[in-house]
């Protein structure tokens, strides 16, 4: 049997009376780049929270590296190499760019390497070396997004979950960032799960798409197939103007 890096089985999440996730199941293999799409309020960010440990699911199980992590605290998931960014950027605003990365590197640097060299290589990879002493408030949106990604990949990172990292960027900035994200997958073998609203970008990045609608997975397959799926067209593409 194929060994999955992440297995989400029958996961649900209820907020009061609102069912945000309804029996969601899917699996991701090591090294994949998977896109997660769906209309506003479909439950994408909630799924990220539940997988990364920010919220406990109401039901179901989550397995990572073959182990049940449903009740593992979020910070231990990060130390085990499962990283995420936030839909609305969250940085340590009173720390420098370098310190933002250092905090994370100190938690999960693999034995035999130093957190300083981990920070350095992440800064170089994301071309942030000129900004090490800046505070987040002094950076452009694109650079702040990079810092958040840097904080996620520094140290031990095996799986990266990006929640709309490209939104708000110009076309050039977005292309630039997509290149860097794909390089993480290509060079370091990081498994990537991206939530993205801009369809062409997702189609270009992901080799597989998951479509979430009202908390349910309604499609799971190759981007070209998913784009032709009638359910997806009515649920997502049909309701969202300009997304083709």
């Amino acid at each position, binding site marked *: 049997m194929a060994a999955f890096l992440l297995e989400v089985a029958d996961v649900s999440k209820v907020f009061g009376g609102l069912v945000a996730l309804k029996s969601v199941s899917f699996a991701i293999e090591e090294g994949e780049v998977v896109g997660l799409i769906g209309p506003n309020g479909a439950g994408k960010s909630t799924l990220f929270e539940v997988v990364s440990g920010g919220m406990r699911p109401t039901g179901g199980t989550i397995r990572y590296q073959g182990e049940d992590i449903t009740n593992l605290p979020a910070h231990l998931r990060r130390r085990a190499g499962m990283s995420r960014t936030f839909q609305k950027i969250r940085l340590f605003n009173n720390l420098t760019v370098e310190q933002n990365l250092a905090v994370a590197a100190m*938690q999960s640097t693999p034995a035999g390497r130093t957190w300083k060299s981990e920070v350095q290589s992440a800064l170089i990879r994301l071309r942030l070396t000129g900004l090490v002493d800046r505070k987040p408030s002094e950076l452009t949106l694109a650079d702040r997004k990079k810092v958040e990604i840097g904080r996620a990949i520094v140290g031990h990172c095996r799986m990266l979950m990006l929640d709309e990292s490209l939104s708000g960027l110009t076309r050039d900035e977005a292309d630039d960032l997509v290149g860097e994200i794909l390089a993480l997958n290509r060079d370091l073998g990081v498994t990537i799960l991206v939530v993205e609203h801009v369809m062409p970008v997702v189609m270009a990045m992901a080799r597989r798409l998951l479509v979430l609608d009202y908390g349910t997975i309604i499609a799971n397959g190759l981007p070209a197939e998913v784009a032709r799926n009638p359910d997806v067209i009515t649920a997502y593409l049909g309701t969202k103007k300009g997304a083709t």
Partner: protein
Amino acid sequence: MMTRFSFNWIGIACVLAVASLPAWPFSDSYIVAAVIRTLIFIALGQAWNVIAGIGGQLSLGHGVFFGLGAYATAILFNLWGVPPWIGVWAGMLAAALVAVAIGGITFRLRGVYFALATVVISLAFEKLARFFVDLTGGDAGFALQFLGDSWWGLQSREPTPFLWPALALVVGYYMLTRWLLRSRFGLELQAVRDDEDAATAAGVAVFRTKLMGLLLSAVMTALVGTLHVQFYLTIDPGNAFGLFQAVQIQLPSLIGGLGTAIGPVLGGAVMIIANEATNWASSRFDVPGLDVLAYGGLLLFIVIRAPEGLSGPLSAMLRRRPR
């Protein structure tokens, strides 16, 4: 580069000036005592700054840890003859236990629970201190048995011998804060302060970090409590656990710069100097109430003009000044 350099030299000059104070021509025991009071005030601010300024956990009842340090040392000494250099450990241990209890219960929750708990615990300890009269002397307070000049009891008729330990404490706490701001533990505390969810996502054990920060801050505060009671020779429930005391502990950092190493030092010094100056002016011009009004007005002015504390504008000033 220039800033660091001049800051360090100004700092060293200030420390030497204070250390040699008793030798200065105009100096007398009133001035020395005033400086010791200032140093104790600053050290309390520095201790609070660790959890509130660096860790972002608003303790509104830090008097608890101060009072435990002071009472533990004093009670052990009077009732069982335990010298303060042993009693101080009991005070720090008591503060640590209370810190673990408060933090253990509230730090898993978000929001105002921790701040509220510190207030409630303060009020409870104040009540307890007033109630157990046999042990604490109740409302009247507790006077340390006076031995005169004594190494055993760490007591002195003159204030001067307290100058150096108080100065050492402030310098030590300053160095500790500087180190903390760059250390792994300090970065974790600051990350938690800035954003708990992001800290968790970075792999930081948020609960443990807050708890350890409070523990450190509480122990630092209790140590100052011991110094306080050795110097003043008396402690009472309001002075130890009261909310006025707790507010006093917060002011140096708020005035000088929250979460910075120099902030509480600067803030504490400015506050005491301003207080002495307004006192002097009001007695000079014989207008009762002028001192409080002027002092309050000055603090208000600082808070409005420099909401981040004095340390920011001051370092900007030093940076701008030509050689």
